[in-house]
């Protein structure tokens, strides 16, 4: 089933590459995120899927549309050939693939991630924190300060972005009058 | 006031639904936040009869089952059209005047039309609906329909 979904995602990506209308790209990007979240659920990573669905399909669609509001809806055709960009992308992709070769095998019980701190989280977190969900206990209790700082940063930047966009829009309306 | 209470109750029910844990602290936190949200809604003045129409909840119990049966019937018709090799469609736009007087009634009527497959409300203004139908008979069936009468009864005395 994961294979089927991944194939569909590849098809969506090719459609996005061929598409010059940026709205269509945003819409297809939303579809891509939904498929990705479903794959993550099939891989049993429900919390990551939740994030993917809300950030990928919800938030980034809205943000991209907000960005499109300030630009044009059609992608301009490239003046020169993007060879350097292509080379950089291929190099980065190759480096990532090379890095993935060093990873432990899928669901290997001896992998480092399963031997250090995870057993303690899994076994002791309900006793130590009283939070029913393990992921929540890690995020909100063991890494509580980290999460607090993260939330503060995200909130501040979000408020800043909204303030900036607001002003821009109002001044544009005034200039139109 | 009663809308505030009912909104808090709904939000609290939603909290319980998502959390699924019934410990004293968690339940208290849920109750506290639902009351807080209701207060915020009150401050933002979005808490009113239209946004939270609890006065309709009793009559909804008789209207919704009828609507469900309608949906099943028309969905079956549309499925038959889709699977028919000849694709016997005759798309039609009709304009007509709905007989509802309240906003909630009009919205209910428009949504019911859209919810039944084969007809979609394209424009819903106070005195006029523009409905697109997959077949000519289906579209014209929306004018002075059974649904219209039932929704008017459903909205009751405005």
């Amino acid at each position: 089933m994961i294979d089927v979904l991944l194939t569909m995602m590849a098809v969506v990506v090719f459609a996005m590459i061929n598409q010059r209308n940026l709205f269509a790209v945003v819409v297809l990007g939303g579809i891509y995120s939904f498929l990705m979240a479903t794959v993550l659920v099939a891989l049993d990573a429900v919390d990551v899927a939740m994030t993917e669905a809300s950030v990928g399909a919800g938030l980034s669609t809205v943000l991209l549309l907000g960005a499109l509001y300030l630009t044009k809806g059609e992608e301009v055709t490239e003046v020169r050939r993007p060879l350097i960009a292509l080379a950089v992308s291929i190099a980065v992709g190759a480096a990532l693939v090379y890095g993935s070769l060093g990873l432990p095998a899928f669901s290997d019980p001896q992998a480092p991630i399963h031997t250090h701190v995870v057993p303690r989280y899994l076994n002791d977190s309900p006793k130590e924190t009283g939070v029913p969900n393990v992921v929540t206990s890690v995020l909100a209790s063991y890494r509580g300060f980290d999460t607090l700082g993260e939330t503060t940063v995200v909130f501040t930047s979000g408020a800043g972005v909204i303030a900036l966009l607001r002003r821009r829009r109002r001044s544009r309306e005034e200039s139109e009058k | 006031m009663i809308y505030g209470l009912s909104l808090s109750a709904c939000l609290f029910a939603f909290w319980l639904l998502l959390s699924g844990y019934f410990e004293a602290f968690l339940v208290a936190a849920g109750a506290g936040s639902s009351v807080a949200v209701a207060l915020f809604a009150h401050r933002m003045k979005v808490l009113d009869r239209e946004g939270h129409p609890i006065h309709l909840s009793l009559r909804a119990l008789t209207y919704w089952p009828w609507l469900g049966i309608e949906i099943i019937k028309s969905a079956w018709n549309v499925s038959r059209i889709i699977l028919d090799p000849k694709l016997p469609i005759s798309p039609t736009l009709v304009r007509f005047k709905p007989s509802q007087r309240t906003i909630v009634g009009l919205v209910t009527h428009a949504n019911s039309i859209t919810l039944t497959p084969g007809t979609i409300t394209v424009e819903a203004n106070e005195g006029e609906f523009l409905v697109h139908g997959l077949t000519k008979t289906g579209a014209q069936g929306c004018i002075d329909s059974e649904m219209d009468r039932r929704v008017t009864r459903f909205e009751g005395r405005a």
Partner: protein
Amino acid sequence: MFATVIIALLIALAFALLRAVLGPTVFDRVQAANSVGTISMLLLVAIGFLTDRPDFEDLAIVYGLLNVVGTFAVLKFFRHGDLGHSADETETS
């Protein structure tokens, strides 16, 4: 037997995706994206039952809400975005 439903939903997903890829208008794509959202929501619930962990529905609820939010964002943008304003339209939502 849940597998039957999942296969059926995957087929439906493929058809919806076909329409999203083919277009031709943006509205077709939005409609297809809406269908993809609905179907993947159902798929999610079905997967939850297949793997015997039906608690996944919280996620499905989030999907459903986001589907609506996303569709509305796209459509509001279309009514007021740079592809042309519709002057006589009054915003109701």
